[in-house]
């Protein structure tokens, strides 16, 4: 009996240690990358550059927080990139419509609208995968086509540009502003991630998300409304997309049919590089953020240094993702 107890104690310790290693792996990769960057270019470690990189990783990072929910619950969402384009287009068109004359009110209404549309798109994805029982990969591939197609149609293939320059000036600080020297997008990243982490780790809903991703049958027997939990992960994803749009629109003041192409793959890559497994049942919000930074930094290092031909950048990026994953595996196996 005492023997058994001792065994259990040891086991628990062991599992804590390798939990740490696994969660820490993306951060180790990030640090290694920072070191590499510092060697490759003198400008890399400048505050300006780092802030730039973090700031522009905002879109992927925020979307990837939503993707962490979807993936932890055993789903997948390939439609986020085109959802960005769709939501942003509608938001700008609403602002261009000028139905509200007070600028601040108009801006607030437009932002609320974006959030609503994002949630609605997420709801659509959620219902198709859960109630329609279509594999998420295919369902969201379909909605990806739909959102992208609608955007192309709305923009007649061209760009949709925020016309009122007053509105643009009013909205401008939402991307370009800073609070105490910290750019707004970075603050939004941290806030979104913190909220996401709170929901995923501390609330009952978050627990259910993990349970559904871990074993759907068990979750169902435990009285968890599996479909509702799944659908909500897609809604959360939609909300995150909307938040990203709220930052995207003030940046360029315009969208086009190509906005957000391939962002879905980047978001998923960020999630996986951050240590969340695609099979579901594990979710690491901070790892995801770290993954998004890693992706952005890889591109930044490649541009700043002049190591590689411009033709080869895609190849190097692919190789680095694979290497990052190998490093992670290696760290995990060492326990």
């Amino acid at each position, binding site marked *: 009996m005492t023997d058994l107890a001792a065994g259990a104690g040891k086991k*628990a310790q062991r599992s804590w240690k390798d939990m740490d290693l696994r969660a820490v792996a993306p951060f180790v990769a990030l640090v290694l990358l920072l070191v590499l960057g510092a060697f490759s270019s003198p400008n890399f470690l400048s505050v300006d550059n780092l802030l730039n990189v973090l700031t522009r990783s905002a879109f992927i990072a925020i979307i990837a927080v939503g993707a962490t929910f979807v993936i932890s619950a055993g789903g997948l969402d390939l439609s986020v990139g085109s959802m960005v384009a769709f939501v942003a287009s509608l938001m700008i068109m609403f602002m261009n419509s000028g139905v509200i004359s007070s600028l601040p009110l108009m801006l607030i209404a437009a932002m609320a609208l974006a959030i609503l549309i994002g949630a609605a798109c997420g709801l659509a994805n959620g219902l198709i995968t859960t109630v329609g029982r279509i594999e998420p990969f295919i369902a969201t591939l379909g909605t990806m086509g739909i959102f992208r197609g609608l955007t192309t149609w709305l923009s007649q293939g061209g760009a949709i540009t925020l016309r009122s320059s007053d509105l643009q000036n009013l909205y401008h600080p939402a991307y370009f502003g800073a609070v105490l020297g910290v750019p707004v997008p970075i603050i939004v990243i941290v806030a979104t991630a913190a909220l996401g982490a709170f929901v995923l780790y*501390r609330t009952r809903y978050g627990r259910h998300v993990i349970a559904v991703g871990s074993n759907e049958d068990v979750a169902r027997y435990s*009285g968890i409304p599996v479909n509702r939990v799944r659908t909500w992960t897609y809604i959360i994803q939609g909300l995150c997309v909307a938040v990203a749009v709220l930052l995207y629109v003030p940046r360029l003041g315009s969208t086009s049919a190509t906005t957000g192409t391939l962002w879905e793959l980047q978001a998923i890559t960020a999630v996986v590089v951050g240590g969340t497994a695609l099979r579901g049942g594990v979710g690491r919000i901070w790892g995801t953020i770290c993954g998004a930074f890693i992706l952005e930094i890889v591109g930044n290092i490649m541009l700043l240094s002049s190591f590689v031909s411009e033709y080869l950048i895609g190849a190097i990026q692919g190789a680095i993702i694979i290497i990052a994953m190998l490093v992670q595996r290696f760290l995990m196996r060492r326990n």
Partner: protein
Amino acid sequence: MTAAAVETRDGPVMQVEGLSKSFGPVEVLRNIGLSFHAGKVHAIIGENGAGKSTLMKILAGHLAPTKGTIRIDGEPVTFTGPVDAEARGIVLVHQEILLAPDLTVAQNLFLGRELSKGLVVDDRAMNERAEKAVRDLGAEIDPRVVVGRLSIAQRQLVQIARALLVPHRVAIFDEPTASLTPIETEALLKVIDDIRNSGIAVLYISHRLPEVKAIADTVSVLRDGNLVATHPAADLQPVDMARLMVGRDVSKLYPDRHAAAAREAALEVEDFSVPGYASNASFRLGKGEILGFAGLVGAGRTELLEGVVGLRAAHGTVKLAGKPVHFADVHDSMKAGIVYLSEDRKGKGLLLQQDLRVNLTLASLGRFMRGLVIDRKRERAALDEAIGEFDIRAGRREMLAGQLSGGNQQKLLLAKMMMLEPEIVVIDEPTRGIDIGTKEQIYKFIAALAEAGKSVIVISSEMPELIGICDRVVVMRAGRIVGEVAGERMTENEIVVLATGATSEEAALVAELP
């Protein structure tokens, strides 16, 4: 822990009348009528596939009956699902393990009914209560450990703790002790006794008849979906139960074995270690010998043997008939004539989503080739033969392996591995969840293997079984081989002493358990 207020009434808490269940055209339960009373333990016994689990699933709202009524306190009810049944105070501990592997023990215990403070889940409180709930079952499991890391026995305990956590009036245990060793079994039986005494109606399924004898007040016997008898437990001895179940006398469970003289070695393992699980193990298996492996849960028996056959990274010397061999993977050891039958037949033994034929021939497809093509006709013939030889009760040939009852899955797994015609067979928990009639068949089969000059290793947590069929028993504790018993010394007492490291007086107490 049994928080439900107990109403004391005279009538049964729960009743079923004229209950039938069909899966498609196959009727697996026919016209069952039973009543369950508060403060009594009602055992249901029957052969594998008799329909026990199906009946329990109906009682707990997992399945809907095809015909018949369920009454609670005399009122007819229809469950919308397991959650509904649970809300009415009926909890079920499943035969198979239903836990989310990525969540911790505490998170699993409280899944779907988390304690929270405001918006936030109260992990500390849940961990504390989980720890206590598990300790009440006589186990010591850290509530913060992820369930995926627990052994099957530990998961079983967690599952029991989970069921008992909600207020309940009827508690159903479907083979809770199948993967437990005597120590945990003892603790669990005590818990069940407590539950009974607090006025709960307990339904209990087990293939371990002495256990049933010890704990039950009433025993009902199912055979082929029919209720054949209900008797007070006091009127029945285990032998009688066995007869009712199987429909014939099962007087001698273990086959006769004549101790053979010194045998030439079939397998020698020297200084063998499986990092993290077993170290410096040495043992020797003779030709035509049956060697047992005893130990507590977590002793590392499974891992040691998995290491020997090449399923795990390991180092040490393995000799086959005196010649050193190295198995890089399990394919190598199969080719060398060793097969290993996993204790985890659902997770590692059978493809539950595939049909019986595919499962049967999976490991030995080479024997069914006609040129490049698999000869399905021969596969079907082999299946027919295996169904006959191993007495697999399958409703139809096209059934998926996952639709077989637990015991029949074990027989299918046995059949699958025997297709390889091995020289050395390692069977991990051969009779876990197996009915007594089938057990007898399996023991006979193992004995026949040895008789035919094959060598067998049996890993088991049931000491009577090891003593009944083995020539020698190796005992492991905490990853090390701590001793070996044979002949006169092969007693439960002796094994428990070695397995626990306890004094012989303490061990005697344990060994007296049913």
